[in-house]
């Protein structure tokens, strides 16, 4: 870590959550993840946006890296004040294999090789989290195949090397089945290398606690927001592609906590954030005005 006056900067493989991220388990996902980590089974997190997948990964990294944790990995690089390092790669449609593995860069007198995030994670034994993996080009997903079976190897073609994954290395990918079109589906050969943990939006009472905790609003307000979430999610597939995320509800809560009137807060954080369709906006707004005074 380098600390300048303005910001803190980490090497990708050094970053690890150093405060326990807040995460409220809904089911047995924590146990499942722990078991998978121990058994080195790659994990696929399925679920709609903003339901807590990324938070879950950070939470697990922290949890697994804690000294008190009974499954502290032998080879993993435990961060002094936090958990396992997590390298997150947000996948996009132009993400290529070299973006993940590494590439030559031009240097003063020729070229210099630089490791990509995946290579770094493999080398240091970190959790590598490929967010929205289906967005990446299909040829790149094939790259992770040797990493995700018994071999746990990363071939680096351009260097003519094969890297063995460190002990703590775990590949976690996330995937939102909701809005991916048939065109963008995971190949079965990829899919069947992961166990899948299904995430949904938390039930109303859990979500209430999450909102209350994350946005610092009174429990009553959080409950109303959770209620709004539940109602709006009823509209999924009936005009809305995706239900409102917990994240958005938290944003609304934060605005309310800062003194923005609830109806207005929901309008900007929920209604307008969700859709551009005027009629659906109006419908959701009616739900908002029914719930909030």
């Amino acid at each position, binding site marked *: 870590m380098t600390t300048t006056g303005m910001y803190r900067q980490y090497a990708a493989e050094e970053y690890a959550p150093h405060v326990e991220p807040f995460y409220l388990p809904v089911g047995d996902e924590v146990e499942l993840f722990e078991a998978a980590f121990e058994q080195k089974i790659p994990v696929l997190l399925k679920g709609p946006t903003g339901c807590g997948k990324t938070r879950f990964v950070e939470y697990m990294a922290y949890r697994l890296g804690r000294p008190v944790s009974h499954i502290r990995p032998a080879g993993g690089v435990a961060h002094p004040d936090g958990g396992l390092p997590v390298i997150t790669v947000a996948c996009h*449609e*132009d993400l*290529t294999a*070299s973006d993940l593995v590494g590439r*030559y860069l*031009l240097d003063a007198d020729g070229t210099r090789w630089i490791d990509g995030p995946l290579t770094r994670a493999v080398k240091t034994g970190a959790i590598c989290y490929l967010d929205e993996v289906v967005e990446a*080009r299909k040829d790149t997903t094939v790259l992770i195949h040797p990493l995700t079976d018994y071999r746990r190897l990363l071939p680096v073609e351009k260097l003519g090397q094969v890297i063995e994954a460190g002990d703590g290395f775990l590949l976690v990918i996330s995937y939102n089945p909701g809005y991916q*079109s048939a*065109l963008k589906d995971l190949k079965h050969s990829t899919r069947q290398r992961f166990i899948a943990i299904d995430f949904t939006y938390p039930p109303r009472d859990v979500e209430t606690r999450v909102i209350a905790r994350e946005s610092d609003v009174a429990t009553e307000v959080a409950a*109303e927001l959770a*209620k709004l979430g*539940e*109602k*709006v999610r*009823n*509209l999924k597939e*009936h*005009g809305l592609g995706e239900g409102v995320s917990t994240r958005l509800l938290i944003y609304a809560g934060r605005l309310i906590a800062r003194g923005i009137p609830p*109806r207005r807060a929901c309008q900007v954080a929920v209604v307008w954030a969700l859709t551009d369709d005027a*009629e*659906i906006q*109006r*419908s*959701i707004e*009616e*739900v*908002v*005005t*029914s*719930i*909030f*005074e």
Partner: protein
Amino acid sequence: MTQEPGSGAAARARLAEYPSSLLRDHDAARLALAGRMSPRELDEWSAAGLELAAISMRAWESADEFFKATPLLIERVPVSALRFVHEYGRSLTTESSTLGAAFFRSAAPVLERLTLGQLRDWAGLARQLYKGTWKSSSLAGQFLEVSPALFAALDLPEARALVNFLETLSVRSYELSVACLNAAPRVLSTMERHDRAAFLGFAGVIAETSWADARAFFEHGARLLQQVGAGQRGRFLMLAGAVARRAGRQAYPFFAEAAEALARVDEAEHPQMLGLAESLAAESGPAAMEFLKSAPRVRQRLRMEDVAGWHEVGRRILASSVEGGEAYFRLESSKGEEVIESLSARVELSRVSEILRMYCKALTGTPMTIQSVAALAEKGVGWVDEDRPSTEGTHVYLPPVVERHGSKEENFGVYKVYSTHQAAHLEFRSFDFRFERPGSQLETTRVTREPAGREPALTDMERFFDLFADRRLAADLFTAAEDTRVDAAVKREYSGIRRTLERVQQDELLTRPEVRGMPLRQAFAENAIRASLGGEQAIAFPAVFAPMLGRAIGVLRILQRPGAMVEDSAEATLRLYEIAEQIRNVVLQSAEFADWPELEADIEAAAAAGMTAEGVGGEGGQPTVANVPEGEEQPYQSPPPVDFRGDFKPELVQLLMRMKAEQSGGRTEGQYAPLTPEQLQQLLEKSVEIDISNFVEGDLDSSSGMFLSNLMKAAGTPASEKGQQRQPSDGAPAQGAGDEEESLQQEVQYFYYDEWDFRAADYKPGWCRIIQQTLDEGEDEFFERTLREQSGLVAQTRKQFELLKPELYRKIKRLYDGEEYDLDAAIEYMVERRSRRAQAEEKVYWRRNKVERDVAVAFLLDMSASTDEEITRREQKPGDDDFDDDPRRYLAWWAQKKARERSREVKRIIDIEKESTVLLMEALETIGDSYGIFGFSGYGRECVEFYVVKGLEEPFGDAVKRRIDKIMPIRSTRMGPAIRHAAFKLDQHDAKVKILVLLSDGRPQDHGYGRDRTEKEYAIHDTKMALNEAKRRGITPFCLTVDRAGHDYLKTMCEDIGYEVVADVQSLPSRLPTLYRRLTE
């Protein structure tokens, strides 16, 4: 004269030369006159008659009438004046003996109304009508004949106006003129004096401008005019007259329709309406009349003061474009609609139903549809109310319009309260009542109360109501209890709507009937409703019942607690019923009622009540039957229902739900009675939710049979609104939903589209109706045969299309950043750098351009009758499907065509269209673009048929192959709506490139697609606009036509849109794929 005066012998001798009646009548009259006239006068009189008779061959008839009339005439005029009468008659007789005779015949009765001086004018009028022809003499004669009756109604100037009208009309048609004349006395006598003048004035205009309607005007005009406000008729006719002079043949229809329209507007507003119309008349007469015609529809939606605002906008449009203004006032322009909508405070269900649908969906989490209450009443399944909201489990029914308040927001608020309450019944599970499930607040006593050996019931609700002797009372109390619970839950859960709901409740309380003077038990039920509306302060009841009422209120308050369930409402009902049972339904003096502004709700007693299954009557010193007032027991009648809560019929809803569940293959649990017609019949007879009195008297059996079949139908009909899937809303699994989805696809769907009126430069809102259906399936033979016959072409196009693919991943070189170094560029760069050239650029990367092919295309095939033409014969025939108004001609032609077709194998345009489609489909399958194939035809704006051969998302399969077989020529070509609909479909589809290919064989043409049948501009402009709309939505339209004359109109139609005229029809199959390639590259 040599003879003795007064004998008349000479005259008699000469009279004898004429037919005998003349002499006879002369003698009779002379006898009658003897006492009144001197012999000398008598002689003169005879001579005068003779003089008449001598005028012409048949003039003796005139003389005869003169003789007969004289005794009557001298009753009215002095003898000395008789010669004037004679003189007028004589002069008419010289014109025509018929006229003369008629004149004398009518003279006496006419003189009752006219002075002697006016008699001359009268004769003059007759002469005015007489043109020397036989027909005119008959008209003039008729005029004289009806004159006595006429003058009973008219004065002379009016008669002159009438004659002027008749004269004008007679130039066109004597028959009409006579008919009008005959009708005149009857028609005109019913009118006010000042109306008559205007009426006749307008008649004159009609005679000039649209004479053929004159008779209709005379026959119906008076009645129509009656509908216009009394003081306004003259003004209206003046206006109509002014308009008629310019509107020509439209004059009468305008008059009639405008008058009919005014009849539907409050008379007090007629002056204003006419004033507004008059201000338009200067600019355009038709606009003024259209304004009046639209008045009632506009008035229905706007308050009078807003009508002026609407009018003003239209007037300005009119000033700039007459066509536009007229369309505006005809309500055939989007602008007109828009302005009404913006001015109107009322909210129409059709405009907000989608918002409310999603709102309800959000609240309940079950798929819901919003429909007009009328739709529910129409189903005939027990709901009869057409004003109040309701639900039957899957739909929420709302009144079509709300205009209670002065602003749109408030009126929408009313809708929101309505739908929230109905949705709340579903959200808080009113219909999910289970007999044996305990509630959460009140102890369950139902099960123990149930008598052993009961008949099994059809539903839980029925089983519950079976506990009560008076089902109606029980149903009322249950409704009050359940509404209390549901409204409380709404207020608790939706604090944002609480205030609106409370206001609506307060409004309802104000409209409740007076409780004082009601029979007591009824008053009790009414008080329960008031309490349920939060109006405990509005309760009035005899003081002796205070503890009982307190207990009842307590029961209701328990239901307001969080967590209360419908089962608690049922328990509450049992307790309320017990209380009600102890109250005799007698009428008390209203003085004995006491206001209870603060009621002591006895929650403890309420909760405790019913602990004993025997009931609580008589315990604890509470009033018992004994101290209930004396009086005659009245039959119990329900208090009026609460408007915003609407028709709550839990028993029926449960029945419907059960039927639905079973029809979709669901379970039948053992505890229910089997669903048999007998059982249903029984339920029908005992349930109070179905008002048997609404059935035809004495026809109960067949009515109830119909009711049952309606029920079956309702249970079996899934919600058909778009995007809806049916699911039982009680949370039961939706069995067989998949199957129903399938059959739903076959259903006809309707869509409405605007049409562009280029003259008015505005859209006609909702003008065309698209009837969308999936094309029937035929044989797949055509598809396979085409592929076989055209195998060469197939292979060729496929190859062409496969070539498209590699182009997708082209390398782009010389980039600052990319996947990989471009070795050449890198070397070049290094060389340049080393040689220290300044312009060394670091563009050394290359990247594969990831162009994903994401194309959606809709093919729109012209299925008009003209595509039936054989290709070889095309040149000799006019290219139009010209069967506009005569379906028989069309059918005959079609049948003939078919017969010819069978006799020999000749390709028609449609066959080529089909072949091209097949080839293209085959090619498209290789590159994986999503495509839809649609056909369109139809007749008139109300039925533009739109056939789905293959939907955009539908996978290609055998069914599609078979449907292609059924593409055939049908009727006309209304392209606009078809293009709009196809564009709508593309719009719903997610793709980067969207293409709409229109394949036709001629210009757009349809019945009413233009001012008249020969006009082409209208259709072309509308089509052009539709294409432009598509373009604006990011769709690339392309028109392909095989009409060689296509260039002339395509140039206009596709101003900046690609089009092509395929000169040789035969080349279409090879041309289409090539074209497609070019379009999407």
